[in-house]
């Protein structure tokens, strides 16, 4: 056998390590260091600390290929002049403990790589020295090199290196970069990645495609979204201090879960190099919501502030046990009286947004083997408030109309309090150099308490009639994710690598006692008003109780076998995946009815016992006429549903660097999906999908010159409807259309072609230019149901859509201009065109009112452009970091309307944030933030004859924050 050029071109499947702590640190043992934080926290860590006071230290680090970043399993490290040494494990990691304190030289060797000697490595008593080593293959470098320990510095951005070496189009952000940008949760951090935008601080859009086309995984396994209305996972539940990296894949490879816009994989930390502890506290002032005496809320339970309902919101009587009117008037009166009488918001002074997080991690020995752990907990709460909210439904009534006709129009005031508790535990154990196991436990719980006040008109029903409406809600959501994972390396079996994960997630959402109270009034000339509750014009006062449970199982196994083809180190990968989901959703509802209206404009008077049933002053016990207020079960069984889905996937792919310059990744994924969503109402149509798809993925990379690639990819991907979209559930809002699922939905298939040129000028710098084309078959859109009498939104497949566009990225240090040497600039821009052929019937309706209307429109949710920019300052000398971040996403359809009425577009919202961080000393960092400085109106609107009509609009306020963090390592 000849010399195997061990330039394995890609990192191990789905395991992205950003080993950025390459600096040479010397860390004393925490146990002998006094300090306040230690006193508070170290007690709990004793369990994990096995080191004893001694006169020896530890050396550890990672050995990688200098070119490819590939870990070099089996590479040897030896302390010169001794027989003490270690070899690199399946992560490329080595560790030598019990080294007597003092200065040593080490020598690192590996077959067909140049040997490297590093001199002057200083070992301190009870200290840990982290020293990462990069070896060059013999064909590239010399046979033998000697460097000093001080020269080994972290200069390369691991993400960019990985991006450069990847077989497919990807991008990402490392823990180090997150620390730099100062984001406290994944949502903030992921928004810094090229082509990614974050909506509402939670949901990710990649390339301006809606969240339906993005997917989020934790360690490669799917976890469910908490919001049943959404297709994706909210990102703000992941604390950054437990994150090793986040990777955004933009082109599909057969070993990934299918996606079309982007796949975001969040990788948790497994083996921290050394003990670290991080605590941070920050406070934010929102110009609208904080310290506001008029903050809208309501009296709920005692534990609302930490996001738990204390039982206050339980219905006093199960709706099905309420006697039916007019069977037992006494019993109904008694039941009606039992219900809580708070159905309108009140005003209270708000405080500041708060955020606390604590994380601890270490790597130690357990039964003589490496054991790594990271524990992170965080708590935050946030208040949001606006009183400039607008809701409206408008209609084009006539081809010659000068304006859109107002169907309904409301002003909205909102007070939203959200508290979020998150925790993540990651423990990892190396059985030996070839096998490791890991377990991740994540628990998140959030409580959202919201109060809304609406005021407006519904000329559709009656001109001169004003409507007041109130909504009080409380949502508790939780996710409990368990992941067991393992990685195995089989030297004798052709260097086979196996990587598996079993991920089991339980998620829950309860929405107890969601209350709506709507009334109308007619002001008269003298300022008095005539009040009424009119059930034929809007919903009667009502209370909902909703609960959703979901389990989500994702099992995956990946095999990777290296082989040599035409003298090049290639890889054959194959694997299987099984995803199983099971959801149950239920809804209960009670309505307040009355056989006579006795409403004087006061909600509390209306709910007062003196207005109930037979106690109503108008009630006539003889004729039994004019029975007053009473509750009835109004549960719509149709709205309760169950959903199950199983997706069996299998793939095979080869990754072949055919020549020095040309690399080819060919893969095919097979997925068999069975999905069913059924209403609890019998005889109701079920949503059923049964699809079997082959999804090819071809990724070609041509390395034109060193650091410059041209990539071409063809992939086929798919997008499936969610349970919610196929379920018969109809969600209610007093001010917006009802949203109903469609059991006839099909999955969408998408053919993607990507062409990208990229040039990595220097480590950390890139310029790229890409073109892409996507052809959608049966994409799913949100449309206004044309046969419904009242406004009703549903989901529909449209036959075909195409998207094409260009994407460019530029990231460069400004060090070529001396005064700006600590500054860097990053810009990325995507321009996308999309076209959907309007269904001929729909087009006919449109042209009835808008003759000559084009026969195409943009795809639902597709923005025509996205701009992200960052201007940063980073001075290592002074420990000062600053950045100014701007992003904006172009207007995109948020609702396809019926007929000639213009479609509703989400308007562009420019967002400008500033971050400043200063390291005060070795441990303390001060950070200042200013977010949403432009405070632009977030608006979805119809546009007609140049005038915008708000479908939904509000602004969230500017946010100023200050935080301090303590870091110990």
């Amino acid at each position, binding site marked *: 056998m000849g010399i195997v050029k061990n330039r394995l071109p890609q990192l191990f499947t789905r395991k992205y390590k950003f080993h950025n702590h390459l600096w040479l640190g010397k860390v004393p043992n925490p146990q002998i260091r006094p300090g306040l934080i230690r006193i508070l926290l170290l007690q709990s860590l004793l369990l994990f600390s096995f080191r004893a006071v001694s006169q020896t230290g530890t050396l550890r680090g990672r050995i990688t290929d200098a070119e490819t970043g590939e870990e070099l399993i089996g590479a040897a490290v030896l302390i010169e002049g001794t027989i003490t040494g270690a070899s690199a494990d399946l992560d490329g990691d080595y560790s030598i403990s019990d080294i007597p304190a003092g200065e040593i030289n080490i020598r690192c060797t590996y077959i067909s790589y140049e040997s490297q000697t590093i001199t002057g490595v200083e070992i301190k008593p009870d200290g840990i020295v982290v020293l990462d080593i990069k070896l060059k293959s013999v064909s590239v470098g010399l046979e033998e090199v000697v460097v000093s320990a001080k020269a080994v510095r972290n200069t390369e951005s691991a993400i960019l290196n990985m991006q450069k070496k990847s077989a497919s189009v990807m991008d990402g952000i490392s823990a180090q970069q997150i620390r730099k940008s100062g984001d406290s949760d994944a949502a903030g951090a992921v928004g810094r990645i090229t082509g990614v935008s974050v909506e509402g601080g939670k949901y990710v859009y990649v390339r301006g495609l809606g969240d339906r086309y993005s997917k989020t995984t934790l360690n490669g396994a799917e976890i469910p979204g908490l919001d049943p209305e959404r297709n994706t996972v909210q990102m703000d539940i992941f604390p950054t201090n437990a994150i090793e990296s986040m990777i955004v894949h933009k082109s599909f490879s057969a070993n990934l879960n299918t996606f079309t816009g982007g796949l975001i994989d969040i990788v948790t930390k497994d083996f921290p190099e050394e003990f670290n502890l991080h605590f941070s506290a920050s406070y934010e002032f929102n110009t609208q919501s904080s310290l506001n005496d008029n903050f809208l809320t309501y009296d709920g339970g005692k534990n609302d502030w930490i996001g738990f309902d204390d039982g206050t919101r339980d219905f006093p009587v199960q709706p099905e046990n309420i006697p039916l*009117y*007019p069977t037992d008037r006494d019993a109904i009166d008694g039941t009606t009286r039992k219900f809580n009488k708070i159905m309108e918001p009140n005003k209270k002074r708000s405080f500041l947004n708060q955020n606390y997080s604590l994380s601890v991690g270490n790597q130690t020995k357990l039964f003589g083997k490496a054991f790594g752990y990271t524990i992170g907990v965080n708590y935050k709460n946030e208040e949001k408030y606006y009183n400039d909210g607008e809701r409206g439904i408008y*209609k084009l*009534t*006539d081809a*010659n*109309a*000068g304006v859109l*006709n107002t169907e309904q129009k409301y002003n909205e005031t909102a007070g939203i309090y959200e508290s979020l508790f998150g925790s993540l535990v990651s423990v990892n154990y190396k059985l030996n150099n070839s096998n490791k196991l890991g377990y991740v436990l994540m628990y998140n719980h959030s409580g959202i308490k919201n109060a809304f006040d609406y005021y407006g008109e519904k000329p559709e029903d009656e*001109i001169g009639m004003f409507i007041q409406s109130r909504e009080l809600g409380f949502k508790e959501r939780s996710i409990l994710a368990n992941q067991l994972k*393992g990685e*195995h390396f*089989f030297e004798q*079996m052709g260097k086979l690598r196996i990587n*598996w994960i*079993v991920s089991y997630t339980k998620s829950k959402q309860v929405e107890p006692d969601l209350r709506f109270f709507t009334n109308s009034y*007619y002001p008269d000339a003298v300022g008095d008003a005539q009040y009424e509750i*009119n*059930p*034929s*014009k809007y*919903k009667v006062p009502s209370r909902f109780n909703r609960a959703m449970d979901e389990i989500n*199982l994702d*099992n995956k*196994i990946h095999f990777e076998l290296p082989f040599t083809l035409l003298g090049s180190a290639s890889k054959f990968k194959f694997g*299987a995946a*099984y995803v199983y989901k*099971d959801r149950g959703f239920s809804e209960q509802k009670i*309505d307040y*009815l009355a*056989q*006579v209206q006795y409403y004087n404009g006061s909600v509390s008077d209306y709910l007062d016992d003196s207005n109930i049933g037979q106690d109503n002053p*108008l009630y006539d016990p003889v*004729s*039994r*006429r*004019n*029975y007053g207020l009473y509750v009835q*079960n*109004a*549960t719509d069984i149709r709205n309760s549903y169950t959903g*199950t889905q*199983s997706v069996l996937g299998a793939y095979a792919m080869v990754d072949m660097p055919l020549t020095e310059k040309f690399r080819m990744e060919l893969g095919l994924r097979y997925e068999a999906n069975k999905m*069913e969503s059924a209403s609890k109402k*019998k*005889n109701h*149509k*079920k949503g059923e999908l049964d699809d079997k798809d082959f999804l090819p993925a071809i990724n070609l990379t041509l390395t034109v010159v060193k650091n410059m690639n041209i990539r071409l990819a063809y992939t086929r991907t798919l997008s499936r409807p969610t349970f919610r979209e196929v379920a*018969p559930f*109809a969600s*209610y809002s007093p001010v917006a259309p009802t949203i*109903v699922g469609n*059991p006839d939905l099909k999955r969408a298939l998408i053919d993607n072609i990507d062409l990208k040129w990229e040039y990595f000028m220097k480590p950390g710098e890139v310029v790229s230019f890409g073109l892409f084309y996507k052809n959608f078959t049966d994409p799913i859109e949100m449309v206004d*149901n*044309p046969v419904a*009498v*009242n406004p009703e939104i549903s989901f529909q497949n449209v036959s075909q859509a195409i998207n094409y566009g260009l994407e460019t990225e530029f990231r460069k240090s400004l060090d070529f201009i001396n005064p700006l040497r600590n500054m860097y600039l990053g810009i990325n821009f995507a321009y996308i065109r999309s076209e959907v052929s309007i269904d001929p019937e729909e087009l*006919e309706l449109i042209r*009835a009112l808008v003759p000559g209307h084009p026969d195409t429109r943009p795809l639902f949710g597709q923005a025509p452009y996205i701009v992200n920019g960052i201007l940063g300052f980073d001075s290592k000398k002074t420990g000062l970091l600053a950045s100014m971040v701007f992003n904006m996403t172009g207007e995109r359809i948020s609702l396809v309307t019926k*007929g000639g009425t213009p479609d509703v577009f989400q308007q562009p919202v420019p967002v400008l944030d500033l971050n400043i961080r200063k390291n005060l000393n070795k441990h303390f960092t001060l950070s200042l933030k200013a977010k949403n400085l432009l405070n632009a109106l977030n608006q979805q609107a119809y546009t007609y004859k140049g005038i915008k009509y708000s479908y939904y609009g509000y602004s969230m306020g500017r946010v100023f924050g200050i935080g301090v963090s303590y870091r110990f390592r």
Partner: protein
Amino acid sequence: MKKVDLRILVALFAIFVFGVTSCSKTDDQEPGKKTGDNTIVDNGNGTGTTTWKSGETYFLEGFVFVNEGQTLTIEPGCVIKGKAGQGENASALIVARGGKIMAEGTADSPIVFTAEADDLNGSVSITDRGLWGGLIILGNAGLNSTPGESQIEGIPTSEPRGRYGGNNDDDNSGIVKYVSIRHGGTDIGDGNEINGLTLGAVGSGTEIDFVEVIANKDDGIEFFGGTAQLKHVLVAYVGDDCFDYDEGFRGKGQFWCAIQDSNEGDRCGEHDGGTDPETGTPFAIPTIYNATYFGRGADAGKRTITFRDNAGGHYLNSIFANQSKGIDIENLADAQDSYKQFADGNLSLEGNVFWDVADGTAEGIFKVSGSGSDVVDSTLALQAFATYFETANNVVANPGISKNNPVPSNPQTDNLASYNNNWFDAVTYKGAFGAENWAAGWTKYFSE
């Protein structure tokens, strides 16, 4: 040893993959009709072609359809009771497009639709509304809404048998005669209620005569397009509008009587032209002779009739009484609207009598609402419509009617508008009643 590892792992994985099987099969559909206790449940197959017998009581559980091609015959004296419940639990009888109802009662033996709780002997009062759904008839006549068919209000869009609309204006959905519909209009969710009698695109071939709708929570009778022709209709004590039309109704009416509860109810007539688009054709231009609308009283702030969204229509030889507001027509800026229908002669009010309506003046009774294209336009429209009051022989006069007795003690017979079609009875009085009360004896309202 490593091989063992591998095998264990593969086995473990296999267990996870194949061990999870918890797909449960849901129950099969229930049979269509529970025999024995006359409870009707629809499993999708409708009622079938069948006869509901005289003297029997049938119970509707949930939505019960007469499917396309089926004929439901209901004999005189038959009682149909809807089971109680809001939303999902609402019960209603729906005659789908292409289905037929033959409900031909007699004055002595009417057919009664009511709530399960009604013992037909005073157990529920005439203010007890919304205790079950209602009677819905859907046909194949034309609508002016696009795409030419709609889903009837109150039935979820996922139920295809809830569609109505077509192109056969002579469509025949059967007979509804001497039928009393009581205490319906349950809330079906989100501001959707069921009208007492809903006529969706019902054609002129359908015979509807002698119908009472009483104590319905929503409208008494609502027309969605179509060409239905109705005589002898009493709508009393309903929670919303008494007569409501929408989506291009072009039928005929004679002897329509509306009586409102002083505490509840909206307009006597709520008349819309189109919805989507509002200017859709054919325009809504029904013709109604001999109506008597008795409102809630001077203090309730309610209107007698509103014409808007491009509605037209003709009211002739009718009596309107006891309402705080009169008749208003909508005048919008730069758009086809009801005022334009008036100007074009598609909306007329001729030979009618008003008593205790608004302030008793022409300007007070005939109003134009909406902005007009400018102030001048609005003022001119107001003047033109008020002047029309007298030109068209409308008068303010006391016919001598009351809530309890709509038969005029002071019959109005002057300046009768002539009858333009043979379908109308060429009577020589105004209002729904001549010398005798045709509603006495078989209605709930006149038996209380």
